[in-house]
Every structure is written in structure tokens, then in C-alpha cells.
């Protein structure tokens, strides 16, 4: 059975704690760029927590929304890449073949979610911080575009393990780094092709929406809208 990886973000559970952001940095060898580069907008994050203010004191409202690569089925980034570095993988992910990337940054311009990070310089780790680098993930160099891979190294490793044991992957057997850290279980990762997986169940919720779904990008990330107290308790 082929897999179709998906993620559900329950905005009613998300607390904006940003554990996912740091977990992602640790898992995926994402560099820090320092104050000067950050000041000109070159921070690298594969997942970020957006916040939206509405209203004013004394009744301001804030919405937190983790935004990561939506792994679109009709991805604007793939169509514009002149070297096919951004391409659709067999399992439906928006792949990024670093070797092919020549740094045109067309994909970043095309992405309506602005989830792509570009290596303007070679990343640096002050020794011995580099000892933490995950050997299962490439260290990208200057001129390469990068973005959330749905922790493809974890997917591959789980698939290889399942194959070795001659069995199918089980739902919840592995998850992405962000979902694993998420204390309030706002992030749930899994196989959308498995009708019994938790992610399939949640993705069919009545609260489910797609981010900028009107653009026709067909994201594989589903957001569950926040509810009001009264809604839930009135049925």
C-alpha cells in the first residue's frame, strides 16, 4: 500500500509554545544565522508559529498558527523550478533535491506559504555545536533552498525497518520531530491513505480547513479551526 503523508494541526490545542520549532532545528540540522542576518530577514525555520492579533485592549484576540511546508499536491514551487530540484516524490511529498538546486529561489517566490529558507551563506556551527548534527540529514551549503521534508529521514528509516521485519507500517509507529515534541498534541502526523489512522480521522473533522485552500494548492496539511466554549457545549 502506498503512503500519503499528512499532518493535522489542531489550532484549538496549539499553545504557541514553539517546542516544534526547536525540535525541528535539532532534528534537521537547521542553522542559526545570528543577529545581523536575522535583522535582514534571513532566519531559517522550516516550521514557524504565526500569530495574528485582532481587536484592541481590553479585548484583544490572538491566533497562533504553526506554518510549515504544506506538501501540496498541486505545488506552485515545483512548477517553477528550472532544474527540477523541487519536484513531487513518489509518496506525494514536495521533494527538494539539494544536488540539483542552483539557488534561483523561484520556488520561494512561488510558495504562497513562504515556508522556504535559503542559504545565503554557508551555515556555521561554532565548534563543538556541530557534534549535535544529525547524521541522517544532509548539512546544506550555500546557495541551496531548503524546507520542511516531513522528516523524510524518519519516514525512510521506519519504512526500511518495516521492510526488514516484513510488515506494514503501523500508525503512530513514528512521527515527525515537531509532532513528537508537541505537548498538547496539536500536531498529528500519519498516513492519509490509511483510513484508520489518527491523522485521517482528524482530517475529516468538521473543523478541518486548508490554509489558503482557495489557491488550489491541495495541501496535505490540514488545520482544525479553534472552537468556542459555547459551540462544544451546545453540541
Amino acid at each position, binding site marked *: 500500500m502506498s503512503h500519503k503523508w499528512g499532518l493535522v494541526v489542531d489550532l484549538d490545542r496549539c499553545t504557541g509554545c514553539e517546542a516544534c520549532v526547536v525540535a525541528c532545528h535539532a532534528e534537521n540540522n537547521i542553522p542559526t544565522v545570528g543577529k545581523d542576518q536575522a535583522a535582514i530577514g534571513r532566519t531559517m525555520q522550516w516550521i514557524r508559529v504565526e500569530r495574528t492579533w485582532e481587536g484592541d485592549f481590553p479585548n484583544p484576540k490572538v491566533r497562533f498558527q504553526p506554518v510549515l511546508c504544506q506538501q501540496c499536491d498541486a505545488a506552485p514551487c515545483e512548477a517553477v523550478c528550472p532544474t527540477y530540484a523541487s*519536484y513531487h*516524490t*513518489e*509518496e506525494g*511529498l514536495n*521533494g527538494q*533535491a*539539494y*544536488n*540539483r538546486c542552483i539557488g534561483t529561489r523561484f520556488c520561494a517566490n512561488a510558495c504562497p506559504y513562504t515556508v522556504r529558507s535559503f542559504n545565503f551563506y*554557508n*551555515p*556555521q*556551527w*561554532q*565548534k*563543538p*555545536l*556541530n557534534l549535535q548534527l544529525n547524521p*541522517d*540529514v*544532509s*548539512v*546544506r*551549503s*550555500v546557495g541551496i533552498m531548503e524546507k520542511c*521534508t516531513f522528516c*523524510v*529521514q524518519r519516514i*525512510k528509516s521506519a519504512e*526500511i525497518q518495516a*521492510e*526488514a521485519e516484513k510488515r506494514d507500517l503501523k500508525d503512530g509507529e513514528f512521527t515527525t520531530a515537531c509532532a513528537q515534541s508537541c505537548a498538547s498534541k496539536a500536531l498529528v502526523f500519519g498516513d492519509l491513505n490509511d483510513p484508520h489512522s489518527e491523522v485521517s480521522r482528524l482530517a475529516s473533522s468538521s473543523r478541518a480547513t486548508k490554509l489558503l485552500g482557495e489557491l488550489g494548492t491541495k495541501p496535505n496539511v490540514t488545520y482544525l479551526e479553534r472552537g468556542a466554549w459555547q459551540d462544544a457545549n451546545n453540541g
Partner: protein
Amino acid sequence: MGWQKWLLFIVAGSSVWVLAEVVSRAQAAGPTASSQYVTSGVFTPAHATAASAFKDFLDLHPEHPVQPIAFTHTVHLAKRMQCTTCHVGVNRGPDAQIPNVTFCMGCHMVIDTNNPEIKKIAAYQARREDIPWARVYNYSPSAHVRFNHAPHIRAGVVCSTCHGDMTKQTTAERKVNLNMGFCVQCHKQKQVSVDCATCHY
């Protein structure tokens, strides 16, 4: 007259490069150890020198690296040792262990102890040092390849497919050019995925 233009181009290019090399060395040799009790230095995927970048680009690498010990695969394999005896982990995960001095001395404490090469190994151990084996096969970091031995072995690919016939080698030689064409050809033959993300992530 075309070749003269090219020669000029090459000579000019190489002099710029030599200059760049000298300058960058000078910078690297500058004061880095500002303190004796905290760590200094930076890790970066950038090539340390222009030469190494150049070699990487052209995929230049020694075909038969000089090893600190004149190890003979021939002898060990003739004694019916398995590859996995020393290269532990190769059938379980991505990497193969390169045996360390303790491992070698496990047998050579008693076997062939008068051999000068074995004495060299014993000397390493006495100095509490490991054998500084030179890497034979490796992917350049800029290849962004995540190779995993175990699934290949489970799929019945024999070691010699990629590493040559080790029974005929003393220290390991790079008999097979492991470029992407080589990988893809086999993947196609065996009808396994040639998706980029199979290996590159």
C-alpha cells in the same frame, strides 16, 4: 590558435586560485585560540581550501589510499572470516564499522604476534591510540546522499558488487566507481525506486 587561448585561460585561472589559496590560508592561520579553556573554531560545510573544492567538483580521489597498516583482506578472507566479523553493523544499519585497535588486538594478541605490521598495531594500542585508517569509499558531503547498507544487503546485493572482489585486495581499493549512474543502473535493473528522495535528503 584555439589551444593558446585556453592555455592562457588555464594559467591565469590557476594563478588566481593559488593566490586565493595563500590568502585564505593566511586568514585561517590567524589568531583563533583566543582562550585556552573554551572551544574555538567553526564547522561549516564549505570546503576548507579551493583545492579540496576543486577535487570534490571533479570527483578526484585516491583509488588506493595508503593505510597506516598493510592490512590484507586476502589473508583474512582466505581464513574464512566473514565481512561482518569486522565490519559490524553493516547488515543492521547505514554504516559499516571500521575495526579499531582493540578489535584487531582481540585476535592478534595471540595470532601472528611477530609480524612487523601486527607489532605496529600493538604499538598503537600501547600508546592508547587507534589506527588512523584512511577512508576508501565515501560520498562527498555535497552529494547529499544518505546511503544505508542494510537494505541493500537484505535485497541480496553482494558486497563485491560495490566494493570489488576483496579476496584479491590487500588494503581496500576503490575498484568500483560509485557514482549516481552506477546506483541508478542497479536500481532500475532491480526495479526499485529511483526517486531522488530515495537517497537524497
